[in-house]
């Protein structure tokens, strides 16, 4: 196996490893997000009860709570899959594009570095 092919195989392996890591992180984020969401819902209910007693809370604080709630729902893969089984194809297809893009980016950069491309 030539040095060039070896480099390409190493790069492809690195890209696959990265994508698996990202996928795993995304999965963990989902679980973490769901946990946070439950906690936040609980907190929100608690705050809501407090609001009923106090009737006055700064508007900025309310907005930040809403933003936090939205953020916890950002990367829920399970929600997307629950919405439609087609979602998994969209996610996987995007991963395929990302991996292929990384491959071509690396390939072009290696070609430029090796001087294979006309300069």
């Amino acid at each position, binding site marked *: 196996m030539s040095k060039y092919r070896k480099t390409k195989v190493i790069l492809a392996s690195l890209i696959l490893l990265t994508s698996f890591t990202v996928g795993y992180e995304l999965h963990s984020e989902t679980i973490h997000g769901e946990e946070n969401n439950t906690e936040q819902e609980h907190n929100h209910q608690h705050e809501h009860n407090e609001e009923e007693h106090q009737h006055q809370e700064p508007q*900025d604080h309310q907005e930040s709570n809403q*933003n936090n709630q*939205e*953020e916890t*729902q*950002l*990367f*829920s*893969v399970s*929600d*997307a899959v*629950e*919405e*439609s089984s*087609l*979602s998994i194809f*969209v*996610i996987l*297809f*995007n*991963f395929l*594009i*990302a991996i*292929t*893009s*990384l491959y*071509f*980016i690396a390939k*072009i*950069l290696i*070609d*430029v570095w090796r001087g294979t*491309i*006309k*300069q």
Partner: protein
Amino acid sequence: MTDIISLIDLDITLNLLHLFGVIIAVGAVFSTDIVNSLLHFSPKFAVWDAKLAPMLSLMVWIGFFLLSTTGTLLFLQQPHLIHETVFQLKMLFVAIIFVNGVFLNAWVTPRFQELADQWQEADQKAEAFEFIAGLASVISVAGWVTVVVLGYLLANVI
């Protein structure tokens, strides 16, 4: 301070990166086509085009990478979009330009590198190659424009 925090808001950042991806990729696709059109009218641009093509390809793939990563995260925020016909059409066109992009990089660009030096002499070869490359370029531009229009419709109309 609130304004600065809103600037680094994840949602805004993702949308901005997605937009950057569109700008980089579509800009590179249009630049490639302008350079290829110059080559069609004046073959002396062949060597110059061969030098520029890989750099423009690199930009398209950087754009594609940004679009796919931010696109996944944006989709996860709004999974209900999967039911929209416009979104399904957009993904279909993304698939077409992706396959076309792989073809352009895996076959057209290396072949062009080989032909560039003898572009003026290799008449028949160059003509056949130009037809296939031209067709792939048209698919690429039309596909990207359609995806941008559908993306705009998704973001602003639907």
